[in-house]
């Protein structure tokens, strides 16, 4: 600390302007606090990784790639005389910049209207009630705060031997910023980030290989959810090296170790997507008496407070590192620090993967429920039974409901198929409300839509399927 440094007084400080931090700032401002939002990149950082270089840009790329793919591979089946002539990635980046600019301008406008002051720099605690905010050019200012929300997010895990250099070795953000489509590319890591980018690049015309150390893609999810995706990968010509390890990348050659022995892949680019790690290591937490667990995460109370006056949300706390979890926690943390009695207590945080087909999951799987000592039944309806899915020329996938035996209370919903990411919201609501299979079966679902899968699965779970001849229990 600079001797004689005088701290400015700041009432409510939020560190990190991503989907957790900016929501916390807005909520605190709504509750009458004077809010300072600190982000490494200042106003340019508003929206965080998710909005600027993560979720939103990747959805743009995935949408473009799917359109290209359907134009080339599906349109002829409808009798459409079209063809796909390739992608101008620079033009895509211009479109993406406009998309992101529009959305971040919107958030900046909200912050501005709410009177939130945005400050550039990295925040580091110096005392329990004071932090230094330092900028890249060596400027530092001290903020004395009444309350603080930490929402500094996460960054990609670095893989030894594959240092991200912005050239041939990229991380996920770099991959989404490509101005030229790579001819041959390998993705190291078959989790949802690598899978989404890999499938999109393959649909745009790259030759894609995915190297995953575990037994298949989406290793943290149920194998049954990953299977239709792996089938699709094969159809798209994506090579999947499961149970394999990337060893080195030199002179355009990636050395890998597979269960069948060593192999070499000739590549233009390598994209490293082996997970994310919390940005919790340089916050000066020890100055406020806050300890990290062995994963580098901050343990918080149900109201997301780590100390009476310090909250922590999002990727730096336990639980799935997902934007919607951070945003939901942000409201709780801001309200708790404003003296309200609140708790973050969802029954389910849905997880969605924008793969092809999409995968979405909320609540308990059959095995998880059994492990918790809950007697469950499961009803599984194949996508092929959906007329609407057929009109989309999609057939691989299913919707599964896991319900408590006896009561029929819905405990989990798992979906593979088109628009699974949107469909899962109904399942999440059912779980939160304690809805039963009867409740779902008695809710009139519009025809013809993909949502009818809920209806059929509920009927099946009750034992009275309308459209399925065989009583199958998965």
């Amino acid at each position: 600390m600079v001797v004689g440094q005088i701290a400015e007084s700041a009432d409510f400080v939020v560190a990190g302007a991503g989907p957790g931090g900016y929501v916390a700032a807005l909520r605190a401002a709504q509750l009458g606090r004077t809010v300072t939002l600190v982000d490494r990149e200042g106003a340019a950082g508003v929206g965080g990784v998710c909005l600027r270089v993560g979720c939103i840009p990747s959805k743009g790329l995935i949408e473009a790639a799917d359109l290209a793919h359907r134009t080339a591979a599906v349109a002829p089946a409808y009798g459409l005389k079209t063809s796909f002539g390739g992608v101008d990635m620079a033009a895509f980046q211009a479109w993406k910049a406009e998309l992101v600019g529009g959305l971040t301008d919107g958030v900046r406008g909200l912050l501005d209207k709410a009177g939130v002051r945005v400050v550039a720099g990295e925040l580091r605690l110096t005392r329990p009630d004071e932090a230094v905010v330092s900028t890249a050019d060596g400027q530092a200012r001290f903020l004395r705060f009444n309350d603080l929300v930490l929402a500094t997010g996460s960054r990609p895990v670095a893989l030894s031997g594959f240092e991200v250099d912005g050239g041939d070795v990229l991380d996920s953000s770099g991959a989404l910023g490509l101005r030229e489509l790579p001819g041959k590319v390998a993705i190291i890591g078959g989790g949802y980030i690598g899978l989404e980018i890999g499938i999109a690049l393959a649909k745009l015309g790259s030759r894609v290989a995915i190297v995953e150390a575990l037994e298949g893609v989406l290793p943290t999810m149920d194998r049954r959810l990953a299977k239709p995706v792996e089938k699709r990968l094969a159809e798209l010509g994506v090579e999947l090296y499961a149970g394999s390890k990337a060893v080195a990348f030199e002179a355009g050659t990636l050395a890998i170790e597979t269960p069948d022995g060593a192999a070499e892949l000739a590549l233009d680019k390598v994209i490293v997507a082996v997970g994310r790690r919390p940005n919790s290591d340089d916050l000066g937490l020890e100055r406020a008496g806050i300890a990290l667990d062995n994963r580098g995460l901050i343990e918080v109370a149900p109201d997301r407070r780590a100390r009476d006056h310090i909250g922590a949300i999002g990727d730096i706390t336990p639980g799935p590192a997902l934007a919607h979890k951070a945003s939901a926690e942000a409201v709780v943390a801001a309200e708790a620090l404003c003296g309200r009695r609140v708790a973050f207590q969802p029954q389910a945080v849905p997880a969605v993967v924008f793969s092809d087909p999409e995968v979405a999951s909320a609540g308990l799987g059959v095995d998880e429920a059994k492990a918790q000592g809950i007697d469950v039944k499961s009803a599984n309806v194949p996508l092929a039974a959906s007329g609407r899915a057929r009109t989309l020329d999609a057939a691989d996938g299913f919707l599964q409901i896991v319900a408590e035996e006896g009561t029929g209370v819905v405990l989990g919903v798992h979906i593979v198929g088109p628009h699974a990411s949107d469909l899962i919201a109904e399942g999440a609501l059912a779980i939160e409300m304690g809805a039963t299979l009867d409740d779902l079966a008695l809710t009139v679902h519009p025809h013809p839509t993909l949502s009818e899968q809920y209806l059929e699965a509920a009927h099946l779970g009750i034992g009275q399927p309308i459209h399925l001849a065989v009583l199958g229990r998965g």
Partner: protein
Amino acid sequence: MSDYRFNLPDIGEGLGEGEIVRWLVAPGAPVQADQIMVEVETDKAVVEIPAPVGGTLKAVGGAPGEVVAVGALLAVIDTGADGSAAPASAAPRPGRVLAAPAVRKRAVELGVDLAAIVGTGPQGRVTREDLERAAAGEAPPQAPAGARPASGRVPPPQRVDEVVPLRGLRKTIAESMTASLQVPHITDWYRADAGELIAARAALKEEFAAQGVKLTFLPFFVKACVLALQRVPSMNAVLDMEKGEITYRKRFNIGIATATDAGLIVPVLHDADLKSIFELAVEIAELAELSRSRKVPRERLVEGTFTITNFGSYGARMGTPILRPPEAGIAGFGAIRDEVVPVDGAPAVRPILPVCASTDHRLNDGAQLWAFVRTVSELLERPTRILGYL
């Protein structure tokens, strides 16, 4: 396993139902035979009900605030022995508590544990109403345990009016007071010179204290009222307009209006005419203690024929006592204070005890009421006169 189905027993004279105040044993928790399991509030008292057998409290017949009829299921206790199977729907749920997100949020605000509430919704879902009922039955008005003060400098909290259901003792009082509106009241007042009464109490105080009894003015008030009632029997009577009858009560059962945190209750000194000042002092102290903990047995809350309200005990001086139908009389005593009064044509400072009484004007006219008030007051001004009637 074997389920013991325990029905709400008859816990007092003429009791038809009781309201669950709180469960002292949570569903799913072990309970021993004779362990106090639940508090049930009747129209007058809170009764503690012990478990009849040991085992696990498997299901409860009502959440706090719910009314259970005598003879209806109060609890299911799994005794662990082999026997008939339990009704599956009554078993506590493993895992999560079923409640909508908004209800869970409200539970956190209220500091209420949803797991301790028996839900009335489908599959035991805890509804908003279940929660509010549970909270009204238990939650203290101050912040419940676990609340932490905010770190300061926050805007004032939203101030939302609190609405609570009218029930239990407050409801009984409300009903009784509404019924009293049917009775045309008249009230008379008297300012009694309490000099000799103070001296009489002082003379007896130490002797009583040596026997562990604290002597207040109240036993004197009771004794004076009993003697006055004997002279004016229509003040100890009951009027029944429907039957067209007046019943002159031959027992002198004097109710003492007693303030508790939950409201007024009126424990009764039965046959006060047969009891000495000492015996009355002992019984009054005992009833006061039981009242404070709201554990007055039901039989000691009924059969009053006349009521005394001693509002002087909290400093008030004058009032217009409201009858407790069907009683025909009520007397009120204010706080004794020095006042300037004329004595033998000159101003003098005397300790003055305000005395008042109300009666049912259908039964008594001003003359009877005045006879009663004057008799009580003169007996208290010359307490040695009471000696003549012991």
